[in-house]
């Protein structure tokens, strides 16, 4: 039974693969050249262990690799540092056979010791998702220098997804000789975080802080004939309009991960030499919503939340504030998730009339000045779009009688107010689904994730025993059909309960000059090695 389902899944995946592999030709269209890209802010480190922020993830995945690479939106695993692998029938033992001919950038050979060290001493304790990925690791064995065996306590359904170069990079054990890896300071302050040594197709050539980073081809790369490019350059340009101009003049080849203001993306997409794409980030799945502090009335009342939800025109938010680069939100799992999105969810309705009726029903009548009650709102301090969203929300809620006062804080202040002090009514924010909802979605909606001081967790104080139960089951269930049913139910409950008001599925739009090829390969295209990217 399980074999049949897996076979069907593999078949489905290969259809997806066929449509994606147009750019996956083994030969480079042209060898040589420099790819220049822009992104702001500048990375603070060159390893996702120090921080997995977007700019760091983009650049460090060209330098470091993991056991697997992936193809397609559903992340079909392909060999990378691991040549082949077998999974036991009970799904608790994963055996990887490693490549023999891999060398680190400093010439030393890569062995299973490096894998064991990286996973156990570096990724599991210090990566932000380390415990989610390897929390159930009972033992890691290296019977010979080119074999790694993972023994899990429980069968983890998404285990094959964890070996992404950004999530579980393999670092050289010898670079940590003499460094105390027992403390965060020791690891984050290690020289390798600023002067990386990886196995990837590119290695660091020069980093002028505030100006640029140059990566050059790794001449000893194990995949002969790759990378196609000679150099990858990051140019640091803090101003959005200046970045757009650089793309337009051709000084820069690529602006990934919505690194340009949406208005500029819309303008540039009309130019003949520019290509824009919203594909290539399906395994990130950014989902934007309003987090609601459920601890006090009136927001503790689900009718009030439904009214707020009905007062906001999601399509308008997408079209006007985000220049069409998004999709109206509908639930905790984004619609681009090929496996688990619940298609039966009903889209949220926009109806200020019904919102007014609901608030009357809930007992919050208008006062003499037309105001039912007052409330504050915060917004994610990531740029102008969020400020405009806050202004729009204030305007629309004002129409149904809710007087909203907007509070403006910078990132540090906002994090403290929302996640440490829980001192807010509603705030806009977004969250990544990541490659499996058990990784990215669970942390916002389970009651055990109500943790003071932990950013991007359950700040709302939402406690639903059924949701907790379902999340706990689905994280250890290996039958995809059963998982789908469990996720469907979770989505329906959260869609109706509205612990957060789902607003919009964001998109990461990539903009590049049409002389660049081979960028979109999988659901984490900008966090992949770019070894097959070539330029005319």
């Amino acid at each position, binding site marked *: 039974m399980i074999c049949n389902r897996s076979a069907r899944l593999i078949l489905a995946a290969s259809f997806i693969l066929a449509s994606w592999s147009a750019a996956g030709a083994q030969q480079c269209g042209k060898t040589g050249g420099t790819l220049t890209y822009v992104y702001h802010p500048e990375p603070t480190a060159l390893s996702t262990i120090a921080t997995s922020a977007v700019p760091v993830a983009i650049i460090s995945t060209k330098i470091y690799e993991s056991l697997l690479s992936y193809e397609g939106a559903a992340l079909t695993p392909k060999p990378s540092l691991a040549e082949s692998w077998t999974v036991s029938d009970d799904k608790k033992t994963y055996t990887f056979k490693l490549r023999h001919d891999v060398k680190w950038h400093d010439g030393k050979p890569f062995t299973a010791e490096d894998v064991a060290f990286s996973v156990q001493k570096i990724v599991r304790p210090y990566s*932000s998702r380390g415990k989610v990925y390897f929390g159930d690791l009972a033992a890691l064995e290296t019977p010979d220098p080119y074999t790694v065996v993972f023994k899990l306590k429980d069968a983890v359904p998404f285990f094959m997804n964890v070996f992404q170069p950004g999530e579980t990079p393999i670092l050289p054990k010898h670079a940590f000789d003499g460094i105390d890896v027992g403390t965060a300071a020791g690891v984050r302050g290690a020289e390798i975080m600023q002067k990386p040594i990886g196995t990837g197709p590119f290695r660091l050539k020069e980093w*002028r*802080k505030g100006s640029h980073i140059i990566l050059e081809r790794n001449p000893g790369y194990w995949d002969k004939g790759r990378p196609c490019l000679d150099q990858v350059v990051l140019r640091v340009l803090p101003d959005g309009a*200046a970045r757009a101009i650089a793309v337009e*003049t051709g000084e820069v080849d690529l602006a990934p991960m919505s690194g340009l203001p949406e208005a500029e993306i819309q303008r540039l997409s009309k130019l003949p030499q520019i290509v824009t794409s919203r594909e290539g980030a399906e395994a990130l799945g950014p989902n934007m919503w309003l987090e609601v502090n459920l601890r006090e009335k009136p927001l503790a009342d689900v009718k009030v939340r439904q009214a707020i939800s009905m007062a906001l025109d999601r399509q308008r938010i997408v079209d006007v504030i985000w220049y069409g680069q998004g999709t109206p939100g509908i639930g905790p799992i984004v619609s681009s998730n090929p496996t688990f999105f619940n298609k039966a969810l009903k889209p949220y309705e926009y109806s200020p009339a019904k919102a007014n009726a609901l608030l009357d029903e809930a007992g919050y009548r208008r006062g003499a000045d037309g105001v039912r009650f007052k409330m504050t709102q915060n917004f994610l301090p990531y740029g102008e779009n969020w400020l405009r969203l806050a202004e729009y929300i204030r305007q629309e809620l004002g129409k149904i009688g809710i007087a909203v006062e907007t509070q403006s804080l910078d*990132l540090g202040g906002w994090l403290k107010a929302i*996640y440490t002090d829980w001192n807010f009514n509603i705030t806009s924010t977004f969250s990544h689904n990541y490659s499996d909802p058990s990784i990215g979605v669970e942390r916002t909606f389970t009651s055990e994730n109500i943790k003071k001081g932990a950013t991007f967790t359950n700040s709302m104080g939402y406690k639903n025993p059924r949701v907790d139960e379902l999340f706990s089951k689905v994280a250890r269930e290996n039958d995809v059909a059963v998982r789908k049913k469990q996720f469907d139910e979770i989505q329906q409950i959260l869609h109706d309960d509205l612990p957060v008001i789902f607003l919009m599925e964001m998109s990461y739009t990539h903009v590049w000059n049409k002389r660049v090829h081979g960028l979109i390969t999988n659901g984490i295209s900008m966090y992949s090695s770019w070894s097959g990217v070539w330029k005319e």
Partner: protein
Amino acid sequence: MPAKLWFVLKRVLQVVPVVLAIAALNFLLLHLAPGDAADIIAAQSGGASPEFVAELRRSFGLDRPLYQQFLVYIARLLTFDLGWSNVQQRPVFDLIADRVPATLLLMMTGITLALIFGTLLGILAAMRHRRWTDSVVSVLALLAYATPQFWLGLMLIVLFSITFGILPSGGMMTIGAVMSAGARALDIARHLLLPTLTLGLFYMAIYARLMRSSMLEVYTHEYITTARAKGLSEARVGLVHAASNALLPVVTLAGVQIGHLLGGSILVETVFGWPGLGRLVFDALLQRDLNLLLGILFVSSVVVVLINLAVDLLYGFLDPRIVHK
């Protein structure tokens, strides 16, 4: 000991308590800002467990009581140790030293050119007072002063990089190309042109108007009438006699602004992607990188105090009537 030397010595000794007081004030002010670097690093990683954040905080030394952190900081300052940036994982001194050359290049070029052209234009406007030259200069100065720098910068980029395509749109130099020293200097000069223009026009307007009004005031003095009565040409009266006496207010203002040299110009640096200290301060503040921020503020305050001293000495040189006690 000559009076001047006493004066200098007294002022240099005053630097120490002044700078320490500034450092203490900065420390207190920055700790008032809510949130810290551990929160931000965890947030930028997409969230982390509270244990992870607590561990980060501990490794940054942020969990110690405030007075302890303060004493540690002052003790380090007295040994000229600026500390370690937890966010960027490098010594603060290195981070600042990296940006100083670029900042100095931009600011010195901008302010020097602004001074030269601003004073010349101010002199011209004053000498041609009430004629059309004066009106043109005054209006242009007002426009240059009122135009926002980020708008001006972007418009210059659109004009010269996109429409004409003759100048680069940002950065300090062409990256990745191997060049001889001469070619590199030329390359940097090309990249320097637009940022200097954007920065300089603003200061130039200020100096022009200040010089003009100072000259007009000096023209009412008796020695100008004497010089004219002696038969000197109007050009000589204006350029030699009036200008040198009108210079003092401009020197004062220039001194104040050169003191801000190391602060860089965050607007120009942002628009042109120029790797200067202004942006470093801004980024450090948003990331709550306290050690880096305090380091930059400390270095800046030392520079300001020293330059103030230099300007005071310059007064004595320019105007012998000023006596230093």
